[in-house]
């Protein structure tokens, strides 16, 4: 309590009575008697709840609770049957046939294969302008349809009968089962979308086929979803209502979790160590499929020069970032783009300079700068645009590293959404991004740097050789060979330095110890339907939460 006393000295209030942390706060959002309500700190307001328009994890977290694709997540994010109870594939791996269960939208209209066909055509339709559409280019004619060169009906998806969906691929893509539980492949209620257009995501019109349905969505306040009684496993769902809050001030949200007002809040990396010390029973950390990198805009006037990109990358002290700035939470320094530990992927070797001592790296970087025409008399000036949610310290540390080779850096902070907007529009020199794999496959990282990826290829990196290798891997049915080709592609890309890799991610979540069915997993996926509370009589399918570590 000494700290509190010091804080008080800053000068507002006179006295504070008992200071014992009051965990059972009366400030929890009111919940109807006999019901279970989950209060979820969700970091930001969704811009959309249309699965074809969402991009952020804070959006997909909500949509995942409402819509179910051909496959689904279990409590740990593994593939389990979803709308499809079974599926088979042709010998060449190009045709996948999914057999659907009988299910209804939350307004009672049956879900049919046509809803899937409609949804896939919609996301690929250029009129929809879905940014994630490129994820589905492995479907036959996907790219052509999305580019407007073929009508949506040409897409390799059909529904021979209401309970069957058949998808034809351009090339073998074993990860289709992973993607089938991703929002891009979710069905949408055709009858509502056709009737209400953009407004189908209004709470009055949003119908879903999953465990929850949309009840309210008030900007800046919260999104509320409630149990969908028509969901086929509704009887196993314990949580009756979930509120998602745009907790943009993480400090405040963390306090709310600890006071019992919220049940969950993702932790910023620089807060993990502190919360581990203060509230170990709340903190969950786990490795996950994510990296943190600074995209370098290869289209910008200065960073067009690969020598500059290399120089800037070499001198960043990753170890200081991953160990000291992150306060020893178990982060791993990154010199590659794809995190280690992805199935069937031989990670390529780190660049040669990674093993050099810092002095040598700096020397080499200065040489590269001089070669590009920069030096003490004509210092390189660089601007970093960072996300406000991120750790300021990371950028300042990078700035410090760069100052040692005579680079002058300006850091600009923008609100998360806005920062991403800068990145997507190419309105930046150095960005600040992280990527969380959509599915457990190296392609899920590597496609970001494909020249055809569009807005998500923030740095507008384009190397025909890299593109060619990725395309080659796509047509390689043999998993091991495919992995090798991809690793080769990564090496090509890393030589061009379109990004400065900083560290591989772990996540930290602050989770109420009351919550059950919360499972730590590599994809940081936590569906509400597996959860319940310790003191509730309803036992959910998720069982106990994983222990904190």
């Amino acid at each position: 309590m000494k700290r509190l006393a010091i804080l008080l000295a800053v000068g507002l209030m006179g006295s504070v009575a008992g200071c014992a942390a009051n965990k059972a706060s009366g400030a929890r959002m009111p919940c109807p008697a006999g019901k279970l309500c989950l209060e979820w700190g969700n970091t930001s307001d969704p811009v959309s709840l249309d699965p074809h328009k969402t991009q952020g994890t804070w959006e997909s977290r909500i949509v995942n609770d409402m819509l179910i694709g051909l496959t689904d997540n279990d409590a740990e994010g593994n593939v389990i049957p979803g709308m499809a109870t079974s599926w088979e594939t042709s010998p060449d791996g190009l045709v996948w046939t999914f057999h659907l269960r009988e299910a209804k939208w939350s307004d009672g209209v049956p879900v049919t294969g046509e809803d899937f066909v409609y949804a896939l055509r919609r996301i690929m339709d250029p009129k929809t302008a879905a940014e994630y559409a490129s994820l589905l280019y492995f479907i036959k004619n996907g790219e052509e349809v999305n580019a407007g060169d073929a009508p949506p009906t040409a897409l390799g998806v059909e529904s021979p009968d209401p309970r069957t969906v058949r998808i034809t691929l351009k090339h073998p893509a074993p990860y289709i089962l992973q993607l089938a539980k991703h929002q891009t492949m979710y069905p949408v209620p055709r009858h509502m979308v056709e009737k209400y257009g953009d407004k189908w995501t209004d709470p009055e019109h949003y119908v879903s086929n999953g465990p929850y349905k949309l009840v309210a969505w008030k900007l800046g306040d919260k999104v509320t979803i409630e149990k969908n009684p028509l969901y086929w496993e509704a009887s196993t769902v314990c949580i009756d209502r979930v509120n998602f809050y745009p907790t943009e001030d993480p400090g405040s949200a963390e306090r709310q979790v600890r006071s019992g007002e919220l049940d969950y809040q993702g932790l910023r990396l620089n807060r993990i160590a502190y919360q581990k010390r203060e509230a170990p029973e709340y903190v969950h950390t786990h490795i996950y499929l994510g990296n943190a990198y600074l995209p370098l805009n290869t289209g910008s006037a200065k960073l067009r020069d690969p020598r500059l990109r290399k120089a800037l990358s070499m001198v960043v002290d990753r170890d200081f970032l991953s160990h000291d700035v992150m306060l020893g939470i178990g982060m791993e320094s990154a010199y590659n783009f794809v995190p280690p530990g992805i199935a069937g992927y031989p990670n390529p070797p780190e660049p040669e300079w990674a093993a050099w001592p810092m002095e040598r790296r700096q020397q080499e970087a200065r040489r590269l700068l001089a070669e590009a025409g920069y030096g003490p008399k004509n210092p390189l000036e660089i601007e970093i645009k960072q996300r406000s949610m991120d750790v300021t310290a990371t950028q300042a540390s990078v700035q410090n590293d760069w100052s040692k080779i005579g680079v002058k850096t300006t850091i600009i902070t923008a609100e998360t959404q806005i920062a991403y907007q800068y990145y997507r529009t190419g309105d930046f020199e150095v960005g600040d991004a992280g990527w969380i794999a959509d599915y457990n496959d190296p392609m899920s990282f590597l496609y970001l740097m494909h020249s055809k990826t569009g807005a998500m290829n923030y740095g507008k990196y384009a190397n025909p050789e890299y593109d060619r290798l990725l395309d080659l891997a796509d047509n390689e049915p043999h998993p091991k060979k495919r992995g090798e080709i991809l690793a080769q592609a990564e090496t090509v890309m890393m030589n061009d330095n379109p990004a400065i890799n900083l560290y591989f991610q772990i996540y930290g979540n602050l989770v109420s110890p009351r919550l059950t069915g919360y499972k730590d997993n590599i994809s940081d996926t936590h569906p509400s339907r597996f959860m319940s509370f310790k003191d509730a009589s309803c036992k959910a399918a998720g069982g106990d939460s994983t222990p904190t570590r």
Partner: protein
Amino acid sequence: MLRFILRRLLVAIPTIFVVITVAFFMMRAAPGSPYSIQRKLPPEIEENLKKKYHFDEPLIVQYGRYLSQVAVGDFGPSMKYEGREVVDIIKQAVPTSAKIGLTALFLSLIIGIGLGIIAALRQNRFADYFASTIAVIGVCVPTFVTGPLLVLIFATNLGWLPTAGIGAGLKSFVLPVIVLTLPAIAGIARLTRASMIEVLNSNFIRTARAKGLSGSTVVFRHALKPALVPLMGYLGPATAGVITGSLIVDKLFRLPGLGKIFFTAGIQRDYTLVMAIVILSAVLILVFNLLADIAQALMDPRVRLT
């Protein structure tokens, strides 16, 4: 009086018109657009999007279209939150902002006037310094410090109040109101003190004193009303300001208020939403200034409405 109001309303129309014009062209002159994310998309998609929002037309035509829509009260759909009407977004946000803002304004008036009177009555003596110091402290610590500190004390440690959101009814509003009240006190106290001193030195108060009336009677019966007249000039724009919300308080307490929505909309170039909020705040300012002038005239016979 009626003539005055009519005249002011007539002047207000061109003012609003100019505000709309200035804001429209400033907003459009700023780089970026609500859809610039899609720069990498195939050109025909961009064409479709442009057509949908008429970005393909000359700016002056878009301006004309916007004016004609606004003239009939159509502020259009948000360009960012697809499928949402701008008016609906504002309608959802205003009550929260107004409730908190007006309560804070009311509280700061009471405290500020009180401190101002004390300071004026004990001019340049200890009570004056004391009251002025209390009033000024509120404005010397930024709201984004007082907010988290109060939360730490009253929510995290004592558990009396919620830390954020509007879920807990009246309790949710306590801390935001305090945080908004503190910095507003100083200005009000300062105004009250100055005008109170002036009134207390005026002839009619001296006469009242000479008649042997007690101190408090003089202050509250005779001096208070004229002393508060200048405050009206402050109150007009202040009222308009609080209804349109505070970015900081919205952010700190996760309130669904207009302040944060406006800021985000501006950054995202949600043209329609920004314009609607700009128009709303301009109208509010004009209206409340008019009301303030009327109130001044009613309170002080010396003020003439021209």
